[in-house]
């Protein structure tokens, strides 16, 4: 009996592992920057090219950094949602305009709306390298102390927002007011 059961058990174990492997998205890499200070940047703003923007400017509040570009097709999918969420005022969304031409980026915001409190210009992708960006859109949740608390790769959907991002933001806001 046992000699027939062992291969069956082995098969089931293997099948379970492979099944789990199938459901995982190989493009979703765990960021090594979670719970580490957000890398410093100081670059031009998109809409006001004469002004600079730095991650230090947002210190003391919870904010989102959303990596986007006009050439990024998936960014278009999440954009209407971002506009909706920005209106709720739960958390300010800052953009990192990644490797984009300024005129393209501005035209894009004109066409689809601008959910961003401000957008930082990362023309050569150098800020992106510091943040470990490997495919737009990506979204980071950064806390009051400037620590990265969450990273989401891929477009934000209502599910991602309500189950992944919003709970973290609310928890951080709660902790912030409790202090």
């Amino acid at each position, binding site marked *: 009996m046992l000699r027939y059961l062992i291969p069956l058990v082995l098969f089931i174990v293997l099948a379970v592992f492979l099944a789990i492997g199938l459901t995982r998205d*190989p*493009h979703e*890499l*765990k*960021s*090594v*920057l979670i719970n580490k200070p957000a*890398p410093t940047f100081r670059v031009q703003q998109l809409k006001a090219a004469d002004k600079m923007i730095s991650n230090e400017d947002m210190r003391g509040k919870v904010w989102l950094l959303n990596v986007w*570009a*006009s*050439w990024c*097709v998936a960014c278009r999918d999440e954009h209407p949602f971002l506009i909706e969420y920005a209106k709720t005022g739960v958390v300010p969304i800052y953009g990192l305009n990644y*490797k*984009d*031409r300024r005129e*393209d980026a501005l035209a*894009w915001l004109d066409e689809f709306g601008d959910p961003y409190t401000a957008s930082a210009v990362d*023309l*050569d*992708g*150098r800020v*992106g*390298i*510091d*943040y*470990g*960006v*490997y*495919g737009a859109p990506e979204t980071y949740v950064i806390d009051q102390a400037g620590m990265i608390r969450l990273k989401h790769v891929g477009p934000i959907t209502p599910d991602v927002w309500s189950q992944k991002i919003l709970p973290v933001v609310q928890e951080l806001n709660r902790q912030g007011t409790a202090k």
Partner: protein
Amino acid sequence: MTRLRLLPILLICLLAPVIRAQVQEEEVPSDDPVIEQRLANLSKELRCLQCQNQTLADSPAGLAADLRREIRLQMKAGKSDQEIIAFLTQRYGDFILYRPRVTFTTYLLWFGPFVLLLGGLYVLFRYIKQRRDLIPEKPLSAAEHRRAEELLASLPGKETT
């Protein structure tokens, strides 16, 4: 039918003006051959995060070009290969390394095949031993012996003793 087949092509042509290009700085090889050689060696060990199954050396992706540029800059600034690898893994994690590090989480990956090999050898050994035990040691009786001799002798063209 042919019209239907043309439809996707037509759609692509219509959509083409909408597609905006990524800004990509042109890749300028360093004028220092030592740096280019070091980059060639190092980038073979690094993964392109965008395409995942290509090395940084082979990948045409924009991010790979950016990372090569960054590596050139750092080499020019006098950073060692180790320092550059540390710089990259701090940002992208160990996944950027094609050769996984030997850490607690990768023990199974590194040593699993040897464990399987040993396990397989053990099973094979037991199987052979078991089979050998199955064959009974039963000497022939005198009558059987004589019969065997006769059979052998009856074979044509064969000399038997």
